[in-house]
């Protein structure tokens, strides 16, 4: 983990940085912090310095250098005050994949013992309770108790074509219960053969991976893959972009083989269902804007599916924000920043909310429960009368009948 797992390409990236500063201009967090500590360019130079001390010619001739504890603490703060939104990677003129470097830097900090202590609790909770909240994992379907009629798929099937991977946040945080509720309603309406994993759904491991503790996730990964395979599913639908990204990109690497089933995000499933005419939508005469979740957009390349879904809703008026798509500002809720710097999360969320307000839209639609939770909180704190919806909630609200 950490520096030892940096690839040849990543080490070249450290040398390729031109220090042009474009990443600073686009960093989601930098305007809120205002100090060089948060600048991506400085983080990259810090990581380069660490790598040089281990692999550089001087280290090989005269032995590895060791940074002071103060330097490591400074670097740790800079590296964990990052939402991993990857806007810096998107605008980098030479295409440095900064996000993977930040994760590697966090891994290195974990190895050296310089990381925020709440992450110890996170690791303990996720690896023992199998969710991020520390609740009893048997209560994973608590969100379904408010449904008028609980679909068979929610109760759990032995086998199903689709496994709906709910995610920890909407399973345990009431603010987002509406997302899985809407998801199963829509899938039931479309007469899909789906199931949840119930208590056998364990945290996908994403929070630990981005904390730099990816080595603690193997058990979670193997368990989840085994549960989906046991149900002979051909498709896994993730409601959470972070789960989707982890299933799609991390899981095959961890288990060392292809998953054997398709992984899609809920927005992609909705797009397909609407295109196939499986869902009939009624009028929804509202103006909405769309916030791209970082793990769905920049980190997974899914930009059009949610937009196509919104445009499919009759009567809706869709307005893009000033910074959207590849350039979308983060909601502030990514990168586990909430565990160590809640103020930063709120500040970034406020800015994103202001951008949404500037469109004059009545509702802010996203496709991520964490984005919804963060932006809803910001709207409440700022007393902004703007409804925050997940994409599947929008579709459920527009369903005819």
């Amino acid at each position, binding site marked *: 983990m950490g520096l030892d797992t*940096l690839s040849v390409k990543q080490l070249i990236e450290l040398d*390729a940085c031109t220090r042009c500063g474009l990443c600073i201009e686009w960093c989601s967090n930098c305007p809120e912090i205002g100090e060089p500590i948060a600048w991506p360019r400085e983080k990259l130079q810090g990581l380069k310095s660490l790598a040089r001390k281990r692999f550089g010619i001087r280290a090989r001739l005269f032995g590895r250098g060791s940074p002071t504890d103060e330097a490591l603490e400074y670097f740790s703060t800079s590296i964990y005050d990052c939402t991993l939104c990857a806007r810096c990677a998107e605008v980098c003129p*030479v295409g440095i994949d900064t996000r993977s470097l930040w994760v590697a830097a966090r891994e290195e900090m974990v190895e050296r013992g310089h990381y925020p202590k709440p992450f110890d609790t996170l690791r303990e909770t996720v690896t023992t309770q199998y969710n991020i909240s520390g609740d009893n994992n048997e209560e994973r379907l608590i969100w379904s108790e408010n449904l008028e009629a609980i679909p068979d798929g929610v109760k759990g099937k032995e086998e199903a074509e689709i496994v709906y991977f709910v995610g920890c946040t909407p399973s345990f945080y009431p603010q987002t219960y509406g997302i899985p509720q809407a998801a199963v309603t829509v899938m039931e309406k479309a007469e899909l053969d789906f199931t949840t994993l119930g208590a056998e759904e364990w945290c996908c491991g994403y929070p630990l991976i981005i904390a730099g503790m990816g080595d603690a996730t193997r058990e979670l990964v193997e368990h989840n893959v085994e549960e989906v395979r046991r149900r002979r599913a051909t498709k896994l639908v993730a409601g959470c972009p972070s789960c989707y990204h982890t299933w799609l990109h991390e899981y095959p690497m961890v288990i060392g083989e292809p998953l054997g089933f398709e992984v899609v995000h809920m927005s992609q499933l909705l797009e397909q269902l609407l295109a196939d005419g499986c869902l009939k939508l009624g009028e929804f005469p509202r103006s909405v804007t769309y916030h791209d979740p970082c793990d769905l957009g920049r980190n997974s390349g899914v930009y059009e599916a949610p937009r196509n879904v919104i445009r499919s809703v009759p009567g809706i008026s869709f307005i893009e924000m000033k910074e959207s798509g590849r350039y979308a500002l983060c909601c502030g809720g990514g990168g586990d920043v909430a565990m160590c710097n809640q103020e930063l999360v709120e500040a970034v969320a406020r800015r994103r909310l202001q951008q949404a307000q500037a469109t004059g839209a009545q509702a802010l639609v996203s496709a991520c429960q964490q984005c919804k939770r963060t932006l809803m909180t910001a709207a409440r704190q700022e007393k902004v009368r703007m409804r925050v919806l997940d994409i599947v909630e929008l579709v459920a609200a527009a369903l005819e009948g």
Partner: protein
Amino acid sequence: MRIRLISTCVVSFAILLLLVATPSLAQEPEEQECWACHRQPNLDTVAGVEAANQLCLDCHGEADTFKELAGQKVPLQVDGATYGETRHGHLACTHCHNTVAHSPHQETAPLACGDCHDNLAQHIANGDAHLTVECSACHFEPEAVVRDAESGVVQQSGVDDQGMALDRTSHQMTEPVDCQRCHYEGNEVGASSAALPPKGLLCFACHDASPVLYAGSAFGAGAGMRTDWVSAPALLVFCLGLVVASSFWLKGTVHGKAGLSVDEKLSYIAGDACGIFFSRRLFTLLKYLVLDGILLRRTLRESVSRWMMHGLILWPFLGRFLLGVLTWCAASFWPAAPLTQTLVNKNAPPVAFTYDFLAFLIVIGAIWALMRRALDSQMREITSVGDVVITALLGGIFAFGFVVEGARLIVTQVPGAQAIYSFAGYAVSLVLRQLPIDWPSLYSYLWWVHAALVAAFVAYLPFSKFFHILVGPALATVSGLLREKE
């Protein structure tokens, strides 16, 4: 009766003779080759050469064969036996003096060395085509040379520095060539006081030069094998920098596999590279190389101004480099082609203008970059000592480049009507002319400073911020390729 017949014949012959002779009497004598009257020998045979040369030596073998020059008798006697011992002794006189075997008997063009010696490329490989210098000015004795006032061509002189007529009939070659024949202090042929080494491998980046570090040379006291002592040390340090950087990079994992040896990593990388080069992905690679590596598409997406600034530096550099490569290829493979003759002539209007225009664009780009850095507070640039050093080196290269060009135009006495196509250098030369400086003496020092700055820049490049000039486009290309694969 018999007398009448004879009279009639004589009169008829006289009339016929008159009819035939009248036109030639009324006009100047026609230009005719000697062989129109004399039997043309087969010059591909030894006997033919001897026969042809004997015709010339019938006159030129005599001691009283001379021509008038500056009121003096210049001997034109050639010792056939001595000539036969020279390098060209097996050739007919007319092989080289190919405009002299005519009537009127006068040489109207320089020796036809180029008919046999397609060695323009070799001259360029040795640094300079010396396009305005006749071959004989360097390669034949005697050593007195003069610059023709009308054509500007440097050629052998008929008189020595005392004004005494010179015997130019020895046909002995000067081996090795003595550059000091022209390159000495106070020379009047427009040569720098000191002979300069050929432009070498480093110069290849911006000039038509020789891409070799070690090559044969027929020039100067050090004739024989020569080493490019400007490029070699700089490239040695540059390569050392690449090795240091590569050794750092190769500590990374390949294909997610840790614990591989360096040769195993290189093997994987080579395998991947082959997989790309020998598949359709090569075109994808080229697409990203052109779009992201050269046309800077990613930069354009974020900022037009930043893109323009980078483009003004990168593209003219590439342009000059490609022009240099084209010139070298043309000189190597088609030395006699008219295009080659134009390309190797740094004073030829299209060449002079193109090189100057591209350099001018680079300067504009560099000034733009400095102004952005100074004025745009949003950039939050950080400037280390190393950044200042490498930037100063680059600035010095261009500043001295223009000064060297201006000084060259002065020293080589390029006429204004021609020099103006090198507009930047010409403008500098107009300023330099006003200074009370012995430019032929100073020129070589300016040249050396320019070359030393380039050498220092190249040597420092892998250790500086400007390393991104090489790594950036390569990474942008690979990143694009990997994204497409995903």
